[in-house]
């Protein structure tokens, strides 16, 4: 089964990426797109394709990869099927950092401020959740809820002090998450951080496998647990912090993707990571295509759509957990 999974997943990914380039608010027939790309002068089709849809598609790809991967790593590290960056408060911390950068003028002076503050926010939030929530599924989720609550209180406070009168309206909109109208420069700004984060997460693969045996056993196998935790935290903060600072809040992809691939690849964490990343990207691309196809006056926000699909799955997960655990 797993031998078929890879080609199938990659084929699916390429197909949804092509579809993502093909659909938008303005309908371009394929022939016009090809003509536009071949024409020497910039024209409507080539501008829409290269300057708008291509960065959007690549952003969906890399953000989806980071969310799927960090979800899989967190679930492996914490041996907890409910772990994901958004449930552990990491996304909220990142949003708070990004909002501070945007509304207090740091971002306009120094463009890197948004991803950096997003990463710092994610790091602090993750650190607090990990420290307070040690000791089981329930405490961890509760710590995540508390951190999310704290971050959203901070968000409201930041908005109260924001010098811009539109801040409240804009940021509520932004928190819903979207990939629309992002430019190449924004993509290039955040990508190095996301790649660095993913590298930290992948390096951790062997430690995660050992951890399935339990913490003491893993330690006796020569796994440095503190290093493994630090790498996972740093990787998640880098990847999710940078992604959130560009896209706003996109929830449930990190939770969903690992669960989708486990039936095919088994439960060994190292086998889950890369397929989960791949499926995270596919899920995000499909959701982003759907936001453009649903005929509403304003685009449906991406985060709204992922939550609509993800929340019922979360319910199912909770119900299953209730059945299987004493």
């Amino acid at each position, binding site marked *: 089964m797993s031998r078929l999974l890879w080609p199938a997943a990659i084929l699916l990914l390429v197909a949804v990426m092509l579809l993502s380039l093909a659909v*938008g608010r303005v309908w371009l027939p394929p022939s016009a797109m090809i003509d536009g790309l071949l024409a020497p002068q910039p024209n*409507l089709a080539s501008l829409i394709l290269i300057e708008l849809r291509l960065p959007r598609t690549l952003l969906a790809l890399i953000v989806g990869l980071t969310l799927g991967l960090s979800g899989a790593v967190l679930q492996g590290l914490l041996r907890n099927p409910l772990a994901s960056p958004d449930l552990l408060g990491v996304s909220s911390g990142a949003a708070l950092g990004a909002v501070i950068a945007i509304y*207090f003028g740091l971002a*306009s002076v120094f463009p890197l401020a948004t991803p950096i503050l997003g990463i710092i926010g994610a790091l602090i939030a993750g650190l607090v959740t990990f420290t307070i929530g040690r000791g089981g599924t329930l405490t961890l989720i509760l710590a995540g809820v508390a951190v999310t609550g704290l971050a959203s209180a901070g968000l409201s406070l930041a908005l109260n002090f*924001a010098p811009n009168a539109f801040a409240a309206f*804009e940021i509520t909109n932004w928190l819903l998450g979207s990939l629309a*109208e992002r430019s190449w420069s924004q993509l290039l700004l955040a990508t190095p951080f996301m790649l660095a984060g993913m590298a930290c997460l992948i390096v951790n693969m062997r430690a995660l496998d050992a951890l399935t045996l339990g913490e003491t056993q893993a330690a006796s196998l020569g796994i440095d647990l503190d290093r493994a935790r630090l790498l996972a935290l740093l990787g998640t903060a880098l990847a999710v912090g940078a992604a959130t600072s560009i896209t706003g809040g996109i929830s449930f992809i990190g939770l969903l993707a690992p669960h989708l691939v486990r039936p095919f690849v088994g439960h060994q964490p190292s086998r889950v990571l890369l397929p989960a990343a791949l499926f995270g990207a596919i899920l995000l691309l499909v959701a982003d295509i759907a936001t453009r196809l649903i005929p509403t006056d304003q685009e449906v926000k991406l985060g709204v759509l992922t939550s609509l699909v993800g929340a019922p799955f979360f319910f199912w997960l909770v119900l299953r957990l209730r059945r299987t655990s004493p």
Partner: protein
Amino acid sequence: MLSVSHELRRRLVGMLALGALLVAGPVFAAPSAKPQRIMSLNMCNDLILLMLVPRSRIASITYLAHDAVDRLMPGADRGVATNRGTAEELLLHKPDLILASPWSSSVARRLGKQVNAPIIEVETAYDFEAIRRVIRQIGSAVGEPARAEALIAGMDRDLAALAARPAMRPLRVVAWTGDGLVPGRGTLTDAIITAAGGINIGAKHADNSTASFGLEELLAARPDAIMQGMGSYDAPALRENVARHPLIKRFFAGRQIDYPDAYYACGLPQTAQAARQLADAFARVPRGGPRW
């Protein structure tokens, strides 16, 4: 028991005041003595009020007005008390005339009746005819009809000057600030663009006062110029990311028209001046559409 009777008495007083208002309504609407403690609960009313009566006759205006006043008539609100439209302030400022909008808080209105001050409900002006109506209404309520007519005459002179300009090919423009919402048909911005001799391509839906306009649609519509609101809200915001999108910078260089938000937020006599400024800006836009 005591509290019940107190509550009952308060209600009775309220009902009596309401009755008095209903009976006396027409008298209040055209008072013989000019109101001396006017309270305004709406920013657009604040601005017109400041143009019509001396500051000494104003009990309070909203805290929102200051930025626009700074832009339109600096210093005109010096020393004037401000309110946040709360019920307590109504009791505190003891107005003898309240200028409200259709959206003023119903609590404030109910209390206004109790403090026995007549309430004038002023519509929001979305075109030049409505601006004339609103100025006349407030002018007669505050007992300054002549001053109101003078303001309207000034506005009509600006409009006449605008109409007398040599006709040019109308520009297709859109007021696009980057958050995806653009003013469409039936908005004040639409009226200003039309008066300045432009065509508002944001007015694409007949029944929508705001339309959504993504970057793709903006490129496909290929406007001659993009108008961007500037003003008191220049503090950093997300929407700038989109408004400063590399595509906009590259292909709409020299085709971006900054307009002062303050002139477009409320229908005022100065709105006609805003239309004249816009027509001047249109004349500076390079001929022919954006090139790509």
